[in-house]
């Protein structure tokens, strides 16, 4: 089975995030890492491959330096990486990004496309839906457990009320949650071997995507203004001396919140 995993390089969780007021884009110059739930998707793909054979290919859109982060997934056990890196793609919103990724995925013709549920920078949690729509493939999201028999995929979908178990014929798109597995650490052998795995960098032209359909030109959303989050309102700090629960209760009752 051929599995494509869509992954993204994001600012490292420990780094302070900054938005460039000029471009109104996230400053991506600092420490970077692979998006955390994408690692769950990579792990799940590798497990499927280990159990059933096949190939795991990483598909990503980002600047050239995103290859550094893809290396980690290659070190974990993915077979090769495809990075779409093109100046004209910078600033792509959901619509433009899904167009580019769908074009890259068309080229791969994978049986299963995996996504992490959301990226820690954009936090949109809808890209997989847009890509599935463009590919005209069935979609299961928020998946906490996944099985496949080679012709269908079954996902246990986490909801507020419990689990939905959903099956879909392959090829399909699945977005996984971080509950699905514990991503492995790359082994030293994996790390040393990652460099020699195929890593392909593609331009928009390679995918047949018109530059006008990508980047800000191809986006359907415009960032109008940016501002800091509003200052936190009145707050109350309660030191627990054994009566904290009662104090919280009193506070909520007083405000008629309970």
């Amino acid at each position, binding site marked *: 089975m051929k599995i494509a995993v869509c992954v993204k390089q994001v600012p490292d969780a420990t780094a302070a995030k900054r938005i460039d007021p000029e471009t109104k884009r996230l400053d991506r110059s600092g420490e970077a890492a692979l998006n955390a739930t994408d690692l769950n998707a990579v792990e799940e793909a590798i497990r499927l491959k280990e159990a059933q054979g096949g190939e795991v290919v990483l598909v990503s859109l980002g600047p050239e330096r995103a290859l*550094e982060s893809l290396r*980690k997934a290659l*070190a974990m056990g993915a077979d090769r990486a495809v990075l779409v890196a093109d100046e004209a793609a910078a600033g792509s919103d959901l619509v433009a990004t899904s167009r580019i990724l769908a074009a890259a995925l068309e080229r791969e013709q994978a049986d299963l496309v995996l996504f992490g549920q959301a990226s820690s920078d954009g936090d949109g949690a809808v890209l997989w839906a847009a890509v599935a729509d463009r590919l005209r493939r069935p979609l299961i999201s928020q998946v906490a457990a996944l099985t496949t028999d080679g012709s269908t995929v079954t996902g246990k979908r986490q909801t507020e009320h419990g689990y939905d178990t959903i099956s879909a014929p392959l090829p399909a798109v699945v977005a996984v949650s971080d509950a699905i597995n514990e991503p492995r*650490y790359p082994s*030293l052998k994996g*790390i040393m071997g*990652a460099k020699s795995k195929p890593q392909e960098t593609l331009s928009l032209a390679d995918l047949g995507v018109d530059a006008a359909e990508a980047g800000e030109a191809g986006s359907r959303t415009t960032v109008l203004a940016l501002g800091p989050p509003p200052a936190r309102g009145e707050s109350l700090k309660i030191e627990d001396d054994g009566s904290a629960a009662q104090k919280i209760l009193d506070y909520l009752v007083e405000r008629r919140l309970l």
Partner: protein
Amino acid sequence: MDFDLTPEQELIRDTVRTFARDRVQPVAAELDREGRFPYELVAELGELGLMGIPIPERFGGAGGDTVSYALAIEELARVDSSLAITVAAHTSLGTMPILLFGTDEQRERWLPDLAAGRRLAAFGLTEPGAGSDAGNTRTTAELRDGTWVVNGSKIFITNAGTDITWGVTITARTGEDEISSLVVETGTPGYGISPPMKKLGWRASDTRELSFENCVVPEGNLLGERGAGFRQFLEILDGGRISVAAMGLGLAEGAYELAFAYAREREQFGRPISSFQAVQFRLADMATEIEAARGMVYRAAWLKDQGRPFAREAAMAKLYTGELSARVASAALLIHGGYGFMEESAISRLYRDQKVLEIGEGTNEVQRMVIARHLGLP
């Protein structure tokens, strides 16, 4: 000139950093308190290939370079020196003699289990009467009827007595003015291992006294040439200093980070103590010296990887990080105030773990002797 790590080195550092944070940090205090050897962590490190980083792949190692190895030790020491010394002593002191001086037959027989971390190796150099003067070894090995008969004792030997210890490489006097290296496998009759020694720091690491009473060792356990023991242990110590220097660097970073976090959180006189210049200057000095130390440690490792002389730089890095980690651990504890003096504070464990970095693998004085010799002083 290029100060960047390679992508592989960066990934190794990040992997060990994450491992140390997620797997080691949560249990480090408990392991230390109970003096419990971290078998589970060693097994996990073995799975990841971190118990044999610089051992070539054909002997079951990861084939990594010295810089990668130093990075891994640094990241472990940042969180837990006991685990860091377990890996460092196993790799630099226990496994290296086999790799460097063993015959192909010996290497193929012993290295795969060691490089995979299934078994641990120890290095028996120090004796009750031969510390800094390690050449003054009293342990003897006499070749009788095709076997070595070993008599004597060793002390402060790391990794010698764990459940998975394979054996120890010892130095022994094999003639009037002759020292040789011999491998003694655990379980050899006449080879005694004391209960774990109680220590100020490194409490979760395994440290033993060894005794040899008419201990009979196969003739084929001689490592390298007969009489080469003195030169061999000097070579092992040269390389080992890089990993101990990496431990000093890592411990200093760990102590600095604890102090930094505490200073921002702790409020006195109505503001965080990190806003006081006295505390800021302390942190600024720590950060500066750590930066200098990092340069020294990585450069010594890099020189070794280039196949160039590195002994002088390794001794300098070991000396500097040993004394630096003492300054940083002490200042970091003081920033913690009374809380730092409490046993349950993380900084107090780092403070205890630090002291041996100025003693083990050559005291500060021994490093100065080595450096002075490299300077051409008589």
